[in-house]
């Protein structure tokens, strides 16, 4: 702040004006960092929103003249157009199942289309030479510098506060593991669209400011090449740090202004080479690399407040408990002509523990996928607690009460245990946009899982630093934190020791018998299944070959034939 306050008295006017321009670019760099560094959405298109803001100012001031009312109109138009474009682009880019590459592709198309439209605008947009010579705010250079400088500080501070709040952790969660987010009931598409709109608005304001200050707008401001330049600032400064991109933008823009004049090609060459070098060798960027060298390690972690776990208040069960926790009717799935599931009818009630068994390739995991993701099945209906999931993505089934634990631990690599659990509670306890809560309320059974696995002593450990078994337990605790009514578990005992298996078996029995959850298990370990299941379902070649009590199924001739030769059951060994 002090630097900004006194800088105008120390610097010559050329440097100052360069700095003001760079400050507007730095705001833009912040938006790219939020999207790319924190959320993992690589975007080449933020320049288009900057251009929209700049042209709003340029067009209004050129064609309607300048007055305070017109300035307000221009700003309003900047925000409106950028917001609408962002909505459209977001809708295009972030549908469920879109790849990260697709979003990047769209972000490339946007500035290309924008510049072509500006080119074709004739005298209205000034075509390739843009608009110049319009009247704008009558401010001294120093005043511009103060306005812009303090605005940048304010925006950076707000962004900092947001990304470090509980809600801001959602961005990192989306970047680390979007699928897990969806299976925690979070609609990541809406999240990303909202984020894109918000960053587009900031970019538009920066563009508005830039155009008002410089008195020039040109199609390049909205172009794709400018879009890649922003990425270079962010990459060199250090993605995911906020401060790094700001300094990256300021320093590189100032250096470009000085060196670009005397050594234009060599300077761009060096910049390009530095960019390639950083991407290949130092993906985290220069600032974090320097900080890691000069600052002690605790600097980064000390800021996190300690979190205490508390038991969540029991929620009133809404309305009458559905008698069918999960109901599949006529569910089929085929890939081309290959039919993986055929006409599956399966109903399970609250308090039941149903185990799905069958040889590999029988369709067990596919069936679980069909229960949770509406887009998966080819035919039939799926109801969770009485609600038809239709063709909706997983977060909808999750909102109806489904929880799914995957076979291999599916967690957020760079989030701590406490942060991961907080993300899992997003839907039940909406997180704050500004703060980090000090308490984390979890249902009793989730707390129990944390206690028996001693994860409650590792709340500040990042998930990637946990052991394999601890990650499995964390995933289970996250799923339970959502207070699901139906729990799908894919081979929960794989790779566990005998003691751990006994422990987890006890947890499952508690969940069904004490808390009335409905559990569906895919499991190979027949011994384990026998001990805890209330019912067995045998899947074979995509259809339900048999279902019934443990006794009936284990002793049936049919099951022995299906497992013929496979020694996984003690009975089949002699085949």
């Amino acid at each position: 702040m002090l630097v900004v306050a006194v800088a105008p008295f120390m610097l010559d006017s050329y440097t100052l004006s360069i700095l003001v321009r760079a400050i507007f670019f730095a705001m833009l760099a912040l938006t790219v960092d939020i999207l790319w560094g924190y959320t993992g959405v690589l975007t080449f298109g933020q320049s288009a929103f900057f251009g929209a803001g700049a042209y709003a100012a340029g067009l209004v001031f050129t064609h309607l003249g300048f007055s305070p009312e017109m300035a307000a109109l221009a700003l309003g138009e900047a925000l409106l157009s950028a917001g609408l474009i962002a909505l459209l682009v977001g809708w295009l880019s972030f549908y469920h199942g879109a790849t990260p590459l697709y979003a990047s592709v769209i972000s490339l198309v946007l500035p290309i289309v924008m510049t072509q439209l500006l080119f074709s605008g004739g005298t209205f947009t000034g075509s390739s030479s843009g608009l110049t010579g319009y009247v704008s705010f009558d401010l001294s250079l120093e005043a511009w510098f103060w306005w812009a400088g303090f605005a940048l500080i304010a925006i950076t501070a707000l962004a900092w506060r947001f990304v470090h709040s509980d809600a801001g952790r959602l961005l990192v969660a989306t970047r680390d593991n979007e699928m897990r987010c969806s299976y925690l009931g979070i609609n990541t598409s809406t999240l990303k669209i909202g984020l894109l709109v918000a960053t587009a608005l900031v970019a538009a304001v920066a563009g508005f400011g830039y155009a008002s200050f410089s008195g020039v707008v040109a199609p390049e401001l909205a172009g794709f090449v400018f879009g890649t330049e922003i990425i270079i600032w962010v990459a060199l400064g250090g993605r995911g740090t906020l401060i790094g991109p700001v300094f990256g933008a300021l320093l590189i823009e100032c250096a470009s202004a000085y060196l670009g004049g005397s050594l234009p090609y060599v300077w761009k060459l060096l910049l390009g080479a530095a960019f390639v070098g950083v991407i290949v060798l130092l993906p985290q960027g220069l600032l974090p690399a320097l900080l890691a060298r000069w600052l002690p390690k605790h600097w980064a972690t000390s800021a996190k407040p300690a979190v205490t776990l508390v038991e969540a208040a029991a929620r009133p069960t809404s309305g009458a408990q559905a008698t069918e926790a999960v109901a599949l009717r006529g569910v089929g799935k085929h890939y081309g002509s290959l039919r993986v599931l055929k006409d599956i009818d399966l109903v399970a009630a609250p308090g039941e523990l149903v185990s799905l068994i069958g040889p590999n390739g029988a369709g067990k995991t596919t069936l679980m996928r069909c229960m949770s993701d509406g887009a998966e099945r080819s035919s039939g209906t799926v109801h969770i607690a009485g609600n038809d999931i239709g063709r909706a993505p997983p977060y909808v089934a999750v909102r109806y009460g489904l929880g799914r634990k995957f076979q291999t631990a599916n967690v957020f690599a760079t989030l701590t245990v406490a942060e991961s659990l907080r993300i899992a509670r997003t839907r039940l306890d909406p997180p704050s946009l500004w703060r980090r809560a000090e308490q984390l309320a979890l249902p009793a059974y989730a707390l129990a899982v944390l206690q028996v696995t001693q994860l409650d002593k590792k709340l500040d450990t990042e998930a990637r630093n946990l052991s394999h078994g601890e990650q499995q337990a964390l995933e289970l605790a996250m799923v339970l934190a959502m207070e699901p009514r139906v729990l799908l578990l894919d081979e929960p005992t794989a790779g566990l020791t005998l003691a751990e298996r006994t422990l987890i078996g006890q947890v499952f029995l508690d969940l069904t018998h004490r808390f009335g959850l409905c559990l569906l298990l895919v499991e190979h370990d027949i011994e384990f299944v026998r001990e805890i299941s209330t019912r067995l379902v045998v899947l074979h070649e995509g259809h339900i070959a048999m279902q019934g009590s443990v006794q009936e199924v284990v002793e049936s001739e049919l099951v022995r034939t299906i497992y013929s030769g496979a020694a996984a059951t003690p009975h089949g060994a002699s085949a």
Partner: protein
Amino acid sequence: MIIPALELKDVESGYEQAMVLRGVSLQIAPGEIMALLGKNGMGKTTLLKAVIGYLPKRAGTVQVFGQDVTHWPAHRVARQRVAYSPQEQALFAELSIRDNLRLGLSSDKGFDEGYAAMTEHFPFLAGRLAQLAGTLSGGEQKMLVVARALMMRPRLILIDEITEGLQPSVITRLAASLRRERATHGTAMLIVEQNVGFALQVADRYSVLKRGEIVAVGATADPSAEQIINSQLQV
């Protein structure tokens, strides 16, 4: 002293966080067939992947015919005439039978000869060279996997759960083919299985893997082998 076809000494390996193999030692003599048994999730597939070179080894050594291949990339290990057949996606479904078999060889020389030998092993291959592998039935696909492995006349074969989901008649045919290949060319084999019957029928010796450690080794000819194996598999 005979140089073993495959020798693992205290091998530790696994995936990023998960240590799956916790110090596995194993020896297979030239011309010997070893069955590796164990339930799902015990590390059988991981062991094969560690041998062929898909997974890095954190400790221990792997030797193939006396050659230390511990830190070799997969393609170099395979070029030691080691044939590896994974459990899933073992074929190029969109390639023809001919192309799949060609990929078993290091050059197209010897294709006709090898193909002739394979049609003897598996008569269904005759005259169907142009058919896409993905259109074969499950059993035929498994036989094609074995045929591809045998094409290069390997010194060592690593096969992951070849009997999964197969008809008993196909299993019998595969067992006969593997035994015959060993009898005529002295090929050493490491066969990962869940099917104890098949394992006892094909192999000379067995090992049981449990939570990343070998807990039992013995000769399949031993009358108590089946009992030992089953008791190890149960708990």
